[in-house]
């Protein structure tokens, strides 16, 4: 059952990567990174159990924290200022 869950998480990760590469908007990419981070947390926890040493869950905690911080940072620096100020010719309609 652990293996099945790990495989499922892997597939979900792959799909998130495709969304991250395909875009098309900035927010799709942020969303992809965010879900990818959550999936990574789950996968680390599962891997600990699969490999038989589940005491390294500290890493999963770090992942959850860092994921939060990086998403907030990305929003903070993409939300305001520069990306709004870019003249329209630089920013195609899709990329908004």
């Amino acid at each position, binding site marked *: 059952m652990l293996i099945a869950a790990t495989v499922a998480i892997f597939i979900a990760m792959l799909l998130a990567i495709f969304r991250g590469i395909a875009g098309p908007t900035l927010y799709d990419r942020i969303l992809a990174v965010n879900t990818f981070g959550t999936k990574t947390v789950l996968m680390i926890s599962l891997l600990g159990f699969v*490999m*038989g*040493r589940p005491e*390294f869950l500290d890493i999963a905690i770090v992942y959850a924290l860092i994921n939060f911080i990086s998403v907030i940072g990305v929003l903070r620096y993409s939300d305001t200022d520069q990306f709004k100020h870019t003249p329209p010719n630089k920013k195609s309609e899709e990329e908004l």
Partner: protein
Amino acid sequence: MLIGLFNNWVVIVLMMSGLYIVIAQGNLIKKLVGLTIFQTSVFIFYISMAKVSGGSAPILDQEISVYSNPLPHVLILTAIVVGIATTALGLSLVVRIKESYGTIEEEEIQQQDNLQNQKENKVEVKE
């Protein structure tokens, strides 16, 4: 054989992707990303060398007898933090280049430098 060397080949592919970005693409930030990829491929190489099949993480425990090699872990652990520090230094250079040249494209910087040189040469000839 195929599975035994797969890690090494992926390392080579990643390393060459990094090298390609550094050589072929003109944007300085992209170049730094390429350097990061190159760096990470080296990390992956070290860490996959350290793995012993059937081994466990090198944190000693009574019930476990086979451990992976701890030495590459130590080297890479410090290398990662040094890597981010040097990347930050590179990024600060990029910021300064942007401030003085107004661009971070390699070709445009080169053009501006050439123009500058030509001007200086002309001034010298006149004098």
